[in-house]
């Protein structure tokens, strides 16, 4: 280490620009494809899509049943699916059972319903710890589970992606699916949080 500078952003920026240059020059991608894809994942594909799935399941018992039996197909009913969500399995939280998702080997995440993962999901601390001491990790992240709640950790080691169906909070009987969806946030669908009543 010593006085040697670590590789800084400017080096990385040059490498990225060089990569884009050679890929575009060879016709392997176009500039507007790069920009349209970024636009899609930055603005269109995000946790509001998963929230719509959850709200539908909360308000439609038949849909909930289909979602838990074949997540991919039930999610496709809403027109959702695609890259990094070729197979989606949904696991329901229920009284006494809490589910939480991780990818210890890289950062697999159900893009079509949650968008791109947050940094903490990709970092070593979460990936290393949640399979070993999920209760401590969840508590640090603000979710204190009762001692008698069984925690099930889903490590995404294959191309199956996991979506957690949170419990519907009390006092939301009067809300419609749209209002319910507004309550559902990313962390609850990864399983590091629950959905609070409004």
């Amino acid at each position, binding site marked *: 280490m010593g006085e040697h500078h670590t590789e800084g952003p400017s080096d990385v920026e040059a490498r990225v620009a060089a990569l884009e240059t050679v890929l*575009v020059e060879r016709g392997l991608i*176009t*500039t507007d494809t790069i920009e349209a894809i970024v636009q899609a994942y930055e603005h269109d594909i995000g946790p509001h899509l998963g929230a719509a799935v959850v709200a539908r399941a909360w308000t439609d018992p038949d849909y909930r049943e289909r979602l838990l039996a074949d997540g991919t197909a039930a999610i496709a009913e809403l027109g959702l699916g695609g890259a990094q969500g070729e197979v989606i399995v949904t696991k329901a939280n229920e009284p006494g059972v809490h589910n939480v998702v991780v990818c210890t080997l*890289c950062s697999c995440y159900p893009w079509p319903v949650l968008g791109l993962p947050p940094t903490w999901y990709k970092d*070593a601390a979460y990936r*290393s710890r949640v399979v070993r001491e999920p209760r401590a990790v969840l508590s640090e992240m603000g979710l204190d589970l009762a001692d008698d709640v069984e925690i099930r950790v*889903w490590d995404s080691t294959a191309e199956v992606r996991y979506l957690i169906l949170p419990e519907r909070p009390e006092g939301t009987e009067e809300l419609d699916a749209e209002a319910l969806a507004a309550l559902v946030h990313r962390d609850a669908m990864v399983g590091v949080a629950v959905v609070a009543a409004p």
Partner: protein
Amino acid sequence: MDGVHDLGGVEGFGAVVVEADEPVFHHDWERRVFGCNFAAIPGGVDAFRHAIERMGARAYLSTSYYEHWLVAIETRAVASGIVPAADLEAARVAVAAGAPVPRRDDPDRAAAMVAAVQTPSRPVAGATGRFGIGDLVRVSRRSPSGHTRCPRYVRGAVGVVDALHGTVRLPDASAGGREVDAPLYGVRFRARDLWGTGAHQVHLDLWEPYLEPEPTGVTSMGEHEHG
């Protein structure tokens, strides 16, 4: 390979740090790397991951997520032969000296890609394999030096099959360009069978070649209560 990317259960990484109101990307170069990954480069997601795994332990832990992606795309582009390493380096020198990145557009192609990534697939699950729901399995200790999706922390541990995912391309083979299909199972482990302690369960999806049949009954970890 048993690299430092295989993080399950490794201690010493501190607290989980959550950034409030985190943006999707933090730097514009991250956007460009992300977009470049949709280029028509041979080699699938397994080759992508294996390229990152081979970065070297210290490099992996001291660089960011999208720097890993950059390495993976560079590595695949060069390894596949479609971009000579010298061309990439020449472009880097040119860019560092101020050369602009060329712009080429094709609106139909861009729209098609955006549609493709949002098109649900309906994979046909193939035949399943030798194990059924409820079967006890012991994860092989086999520790391949190539790509694998069998993490170290379950090697040698006993779990119970609780999902049949059909027959799926085996990453160990496809990372190297070979096409081998194998049955994929969801396997449930008790934390105490992994770490000796803990009341939780850990579920992994594991291919049949990672698994060995385990006789039902008493093991060294005590009687199985999986069923």
